[in-house]
């Protein structure tokens, strides 16, 4: 009899989701779906509000990556005004985006995924969490906490608050950065680099023992999309879009983020609130692509900072083409954290960072604009349309988690086919399916703006909905 296994909600991710695994009459996994089950509809809230309110409002989309939303929103505001922000404002925006990449990746790697990596995917679930790491790996977790603190402190010193900073604005940012704040930030650099090199060494030392997971938690060909500098370097604030295929060939290059809707389209499915972005020329679902740390390292040719460049060269040797194993999102995340700290150090040494002129002012000069940047989880687009007086008519947010949605569903299905044994369900099997999702570090608050609770209920059902087997984790 055909059956369905439901993992609901998925744990140790940001937001609320469930996974359905369909089992055929022969008792084999047939397919799987990653459902996002909550909806807030932030775009609708924007309509009718003045566009200059958007950075403050968008800061509330997400508690993990608010800075990226503020930056994309502020850049869309720059476009509506038709101005270029002063250099000090651009440097501040860059600084905070790196800080956010650092703190968000620290949360994902150290707090959410390290329990699987260091304690084992089959370790008891009541211990397989940050508290288990406190017991077993106190130095490791202290370093993770410090790294996240550093990123948050940079955001707080410049943006006024660690979460939901009201700091960006159309035309620039609200306040200049003080010398005292800059000097305090600089005090964290050496320790942070040391911690990241430790973590990179530790993760790389574990990879041999994780080959089964590396090969089967989302290892498949796809396109990869990310922002690069004009010479193909890693870039998070400004630049052009590049798309490569799984062989590492450049499929499209120097795409203008302002024209994202000429190469990205979104499809929807009735069973999830997250849309499915795809590369328009290849259609849906053939145009599936991945964004975020793995994609950025695949599309970029170099990092542009010495330590990250060394790591990136080694990373790229893991494949003759693009690195297609989603498990390596974790490694890519750590390399990006190292790169971010190096870039933060560079920015802190730039005298223009403390410039007093941080905002260009104008009345609205355009009725439509797009702001984009690289958020921790991938490329982010904010597309605004306004009235003649600057009242928002429409907002469209294209979020990283939506762009990874096809890939996440494929990863879940691949993991389920490999690890799930219907009729003999174990927590470790299902944790591997969840771990496939955690590779992508989805932010469901961003993509649907949900507020999630995260217990876990797993149900094995037949197609009529009858529960055949159930595991519950509070």
């Amino acid at each position, binding site marked *: 009899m055909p059956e369905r296994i439901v993992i609901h909600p998925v*744990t*140790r991710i940001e937001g609320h989701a469930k996974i359905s695994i369909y089992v055929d009459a022969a008792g084999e996994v047939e397919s799987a779906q990653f459902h996002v089950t909550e909806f807030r509809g932030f775009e609708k809230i924007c309509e009718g509000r003045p566009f200059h309110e958007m950075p403050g409002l968008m800061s509330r989309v997400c*508690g993990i990556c608010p800075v990226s939303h503020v930056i994309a929103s502020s850049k869309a505001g720059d476009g509506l005004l038709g101005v270029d922000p002063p250099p000090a404002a651009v440097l501040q925006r860059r600084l905070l985006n790196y800080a956010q990449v650092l703190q968000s990746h620290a949360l994902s790697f150290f*707090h*959410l995924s390290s329990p699987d990596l260091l304690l084992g995917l089959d370790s008891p679930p*009541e*211990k397989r*969490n*940050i*508290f288990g790491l*406190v*017991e077993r790996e*106190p130095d490791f*977790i*202290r370093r993770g*906490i*410090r790294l*996240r*603190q550093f990123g*948050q402190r940079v955001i707080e010193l410049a943006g006024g608050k660690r*979460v939901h900073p009201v700091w960006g604005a159309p035309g620039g940012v609200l306040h200049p950065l003080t010398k005292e704040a800059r000097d305090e930030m600089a005090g964290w650099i050496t320790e942070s680099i040391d911690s990241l090199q430790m973590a990179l060494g530790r993760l790389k030392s574990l990879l041999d023992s994780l080959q089964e997971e590396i090969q089967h938690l989302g290892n498949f060909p796809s396109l990869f999309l990310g922002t690069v500098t004009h010479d193909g370097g890693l870039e998070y604030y400004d630049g052009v879009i590049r798309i490569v295929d799984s062989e590492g060939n450049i499929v499209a290059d120097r795409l203008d983020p302002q024209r994202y809707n000429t190469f990205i389209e979104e499809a929807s499915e009735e069973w999830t609130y997250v849309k499915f972005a795809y590369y328009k020329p290849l259609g849906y679902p053939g145009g599936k692509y991945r964004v975020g740390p793995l994609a950025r390292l695949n599309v970029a040719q170099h990092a542009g900072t010495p330590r990250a460049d060394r790591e990136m060269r080694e990373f790229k040797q893991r494949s003759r083409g693009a690195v297609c194993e989603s498990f390596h999102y974790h490694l890519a995340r750590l390399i990006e954290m190292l790169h971010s700290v190096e870039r933060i150090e560079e920015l802190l040494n730039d005298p223009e960072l403390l410039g007093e002129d941080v905002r260009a002012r104008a009345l609205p000069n355009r009725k439509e604009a797009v702001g984009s940047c690289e958020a921790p989880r991938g490329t982010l687009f904010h597309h605004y349309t306004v009235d003649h007086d600057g009242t928002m008519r429409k907002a469209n947010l294209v979020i990283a988690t939506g762009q990874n949605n096809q890939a996440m569903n494929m990863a879940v299905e691949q993991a389920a086919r490999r690890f799930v044994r219907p009729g003999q369900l174990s927590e470790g099997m299902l944790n591997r399916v969840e771990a496939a999702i955690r590779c992508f570090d989805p932010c469901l608050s961003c993509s649907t703006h949900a507020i*999630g*609770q*995260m217990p876990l209920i797993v149900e094995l059902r037949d197609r009529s909905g009858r529960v055949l087997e159930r595991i519950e984790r509070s």
Partner: protein
Amino acid sequence: MRALVVAIGNRLRADDGVAHRVADMLQVPRATVRRVHQLTPEIAAEMQDVDTVVFLDADPEAEDPALERIDRPVETSGSLSHSMTPETLVTMASRLYNFHGEAWICRLYARDFSPSTEISPGAASHLEKAAQLVQQLLEARCTSPR
């Protein structure tokens, strides 16, 4: 002696912001006040240099404000921040950062959690007493040598 006050809540959700309001009323020079939406592991790191930590939190079942001592570390099995409690944070601070100071929680009267920057009259009527209680505790701890 140094103290840390952690006020938990959201000022945009009516009474959920009462902890932040009580924190605004405190005047203790040697206390650091942190206003947060939720508890995260980073707060444990901030507890390593203090002798007293006081958590302020809106509670739909609280009546008159009172201070409760968090006596012993508890065993923890929660996954992370969405379910992190003052007790688990104290446990984490004691194990990771050798925190052996006093930990207190003041549960604050809260009934209305609808979207609003205003708090209910019931919640407002308890603010002053809560602030006095916490202020007295902090004054006693921050003026006496350990």
